């Protein structure tokens, strides 16, 4: 058995340095001759937002795509909480969704659904950062639910509309469980986000995000991100984080969420007790 496997391998034509060195997770992006093509459009004329997309592409920059994480205008209680958090405890490492700003190299996609009445709900699907959850952006003109009856969720309640070629997504109803970056920057369930998604070419999708959380920040936060299309033919893969999750065992780490779940360690506005 060993011999036959080895001989099969010996017949393989791959070069000795295949695959190329690529420390970190790896997702290819479309080459310039494809990425520079015009923005594709749906039958109704709106931009076709389907990628798939990746934030950091082949360089596997991972967390580096977070912009100015240390310059966010945190109120004192939130900064104290952030400073007290340990990166080993970021919820994502325990298979939770990454949250609204978290980017990693794994691809994700927009799905612009069509119904008998025309364009329908837009879905965002994530290979990895969604923790298995799907985002829904309702395009039928509905309002957000009454705040008193809104049960907070990881992705909140999103409504969308087109402003020219830009998809504007308004979201409330987030829970307070995700970290805005791997350093532990918190937010509360008062977070309100406005995302402005613009596909400027086949290969480029810009997202300008406004964060409005007056309990966490001293002012509005404006962030700018750019996603890159994968080469045509590339698809999302299944990613079930709990399938074989052995995180922490090599280092003897405890799961701080066991028995109590995710969420802010203090009440919003309260200072963490040392």
């Amino acid at each position, binding site marked *: *058995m*060993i011999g036959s*496997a*080895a001989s*099969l*391998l*010996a017949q*393989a034509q*791959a070069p*000795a*340095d*295949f*695959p*190329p*060195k*690529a*420390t*970190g*997770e*790896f*997702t*290819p992006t479309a080459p310039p001759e494809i990425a520079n093509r015009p923005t594709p459009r749906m039958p109704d004329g709106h931009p076709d937002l389907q990628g798939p997309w990746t934030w950091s592409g082949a360089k*596997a*920059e*991972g*967390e*580096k795509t977070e912009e100015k994480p240390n310059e966010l205008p945190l109120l004192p209680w939130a900064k104290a909480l952030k400073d007290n958090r340990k*990166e*080993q405890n970021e919820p994502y*490492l325990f*298979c939770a969704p990454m949250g609204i700003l978290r980017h990693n*190299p*794994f691809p994700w996609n927009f799905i612009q659904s069509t119904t008998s009445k025309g364009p329908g709900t837009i879905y965002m699907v994530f*290979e*990895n950062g969604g923790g298995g959850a799907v985002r829904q952006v309702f395009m039928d003109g509905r309002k957000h639910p009454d705040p008193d009856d809104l049960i907070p969720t990881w992705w909140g309640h999103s409504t969308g509309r087109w402003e020219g070629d830009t998809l504007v997504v308004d979201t409330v109803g987030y829970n307070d469980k995700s970290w805005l970056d*791997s*350093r532990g920057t918190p937010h509360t369930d008062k977070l309100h986000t406005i995302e402005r998604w613009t596909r400027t070419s086949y290969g480029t999708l810009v997202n300008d995000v406004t964060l409005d959380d007056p309990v966490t920040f001293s002012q509005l936060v404006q962030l700018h991100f750019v996603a890159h299309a994968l080469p045509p033919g*590339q698809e999302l*893969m*299944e*990613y*079930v*984080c709990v*399938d*074989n*999750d*052995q*995180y*922490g*065992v*090599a*280092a*003897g*780490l405890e799961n701080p969420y066991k028995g109590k779940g995710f969420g802010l360690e203090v009440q919003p506005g309260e200072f963490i007790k040392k």
Partner: protein
Amino acid sequence: MRPHLIALVSGLFIVTTSSLALAHHSFAIEYDATKPIEGTGTIQKVEWTNPHMRIYIDVTEPNGSVTTWNLEMGSVNSIQRRGWKPSDLKAGLKVSFKGYAGREVRTRAAIDVITLPDGRVFKGASSAPDAPPSSVP
């Protein structure tokens, strides 16, 4: 299957960790860049899974006992996108490997390189952006 193996060699090479001081992802949390490991053994099992692929390698110690290493690789999705297939990494193959020991459990290590019997080298297998540069150029 009775492994025919070369003894494990423990490296003493010290990795410069200035960049790791700024690390903020799971390599430095779980693995120790100052504790490189290497060995040669027989692949017992390959798990093509998420969030990480794992490869279990049986290494015979000088006293004849067998140590099974549990070696963490990147996500199976990324490894597929780099072109690796199940036929490339199979149980029964004799391979050599280098990596970095777990902070508490030495035999749970992050893989740096695996060298296959046909000479092909699987490099940069660790999933973390703050992992040390591969020891293979």
